[in-house]
């Protein structure tokens, strides 16, 4: 069995700062594995340990995604090998472009039984790549996955739905997007970290891949922020706690917060 886990090497917006003109300064942000990708790796690792599957990490992006530290960071979490497509033409690639290259890599690896992705990337959070990838591969896509067990051809997937858990059986390859809290990623041990550099890393040339052609191009034409409402500055006298609580509840109801 082969399980592919796409991962992203990127900066966390928490480490970026906003300039006075509204643009983002990323200069002090340190790149790392996108926050929810270790959840996907952990979820896939559990299935791989149960089935003996090979666990393959895949990343695509501009120069830097193939840095040795990036590969070691994910390999230390239990992947058997990684495949990297590093090309500056992907610097401003949209989600559909990224999904298309991922689909080509899955085809290059061959005989892939399952793709497990993170919930979304920490920097863009578009939640589009898993479904777009699945569409290109012609596979079902399942989001909010909390657990996966079974073998190729009889995968059993649990996913969170409003008010409960849904269980699915999938008879063929699929793309699963792990929910952000599906599992708690384990902390890599020191030996795993030190051994990660010895695991295989394959660098693929973008030009050599059969990337599916896109039928449409999506461009962001504008962004806007909701207008900031002026603070009401309403003060509540707390001399009488019971009366103050009642007044607070009334104010919150009036504002539509309760």
């Amino acid at each position, binding site marked *: 069995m082969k399980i592919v886990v796409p991962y992203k090497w990127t900066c966390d917006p928490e480490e970026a700062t906003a300039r006075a003109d509204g643009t983002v300064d990323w200069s002090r942000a340190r790149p*790392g594995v996108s926050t929810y990708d270790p959840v996907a790796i952990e979820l896939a690792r559990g299935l791989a340990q149960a089935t003996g599957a090979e666990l393959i990490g895949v990343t695509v992006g501009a120069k830097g995604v193939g840095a*040795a*530290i990036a590969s*070691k*960071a994910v390999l*230390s979490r239990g992947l058997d090998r990684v495949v990297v497509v590093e090309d500056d033409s992907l610097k401003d690639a949209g989600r559909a472009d990224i999904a298309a290259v991922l689909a080509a890599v899955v085809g290059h690896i061959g005989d892939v039984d399952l793709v497990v992705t993170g919930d979304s990337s920490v920097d863009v959070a578009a939640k589009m790549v898993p479904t777009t990838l699945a569409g290109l591969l012609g596979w079902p896509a399942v989001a909010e996955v909390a657990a996966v067990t079974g073998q190729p051809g009889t995968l059993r997937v649990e996913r969170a739905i409003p008010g409960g858990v849904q269980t699915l059986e999938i008879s063929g390859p699929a793309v699963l997007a792990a929910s952000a809290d599906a599992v708690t990623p384990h*902390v*890599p*041990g*020191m*030996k795993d*970290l*030190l051994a*990660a*550099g010895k695991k295989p890393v394959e660098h693929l040339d973008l030009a050599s891949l059969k990337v599916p052609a896109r039928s449409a191009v999506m461009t962001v034409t504008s962004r806007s922020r909701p207008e900031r409402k002026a603070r009401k500055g309403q003060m509540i006298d707390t001399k009488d706690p019971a009366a103050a609580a009642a007044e607070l509840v009334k104010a919150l109801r009036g504002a539509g917060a309760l």
Partner: protein
Amino acid sequence: MDFELTDEQQLIRDAVREFAESEVAPTAAATDRDHRFPAELVPRMAELNIMGIPYPEKYGGAGGDYVSYMLAAEELARACATTSVILLAHCSLATWPVYHFGTEEQKERYLRDMASGRRLGAFALTEPGAGTDAGATTTTAVLKGDEYVLNGSKIFISNAPYAEIYIVFAKTDTAAAGTRGISAFIVERDTPGFTVGEAEHKLGIRGSSTPPLYFADCHIPKDALLGGEGNGFKVAMQTLDGGRIGIAAQALGIAQAALDAAVGYAKERVQFGKPLAAQQAIQWMIADMATAVDAARLLVYRAAWCVDNGRPYGTEGAMAKLFASEAATRVADRAIQVHGGYGYTEDYPVERNYRDAKITEIYEGTSEVQRMVISRAALR
């Protein structure tokens, strides 16, 4: 000159930070408040191979370098100074002499368990009348046939109630003056005649249990001798040469935690209509604190680099410990000042940083001893 950490060092630092933030930090305040040894963290650190980072894999260690080990010590101290010293006392003080001075048979018997973290170690040098003056050791080890018989006592022994393997220093030649005639021994827990006393309550690192040890006609096998008879002082001093780099890393972690807290508080607390961080007096305090922490970091990792590159590190380690420990006390003091009255309460972590920092100026060689080492080198 390359000041960057290697990929492995960065990843180790990040992994230990992840462990420290998620599993160590949440219990740090309770560990301190209750004077509680966080015994549950030892097997977790063993599971992550943190307990023997610098030792070869063939001996149960992780096969990492000393810089990585110091990064781990720093990150742990940033979350909890107690947890950091549990690791340091075990890895630097107890495991190191077995690795460097042990016979192959001793390494086979003890090193794998110690470097893997399966069995915790302790280092028993200090006595009621022998602190900085280690030569004033009065615990004796008399050879009788195939055994040594230990009599005496030790105090302030980190990890003692939970350790299983103790490196004990005793006089084998009571006629020899001063530091001569001292030998080192590997003593196992539950050896008849060996008891662990009650731990005292301390100002800081309150979860680090440091009770006395008592030896009353304690018989140990002859092959428990470590490093040859009469070589105990050399074993102790060389062990402490490396151990003090670890204490410097611990001090650095404490200082970093205090600085982080001060910066966070200064950005949020508003007085006179603006955050404290907008006030020049606070800005200058933060500048001094940040500079001290960065200087300490450079000294710690320079000393660790010396270890990794086979360079002499006695003076470098002494400089790192002297500077980092005094910086930690100073930075923690300023951090409380930035916090004002709130910093004086247990609701904020800086008072714990302040109490934890002080011991780093004292144990594993006081600042006065470090000054002796450094001046001796400088005046050669």
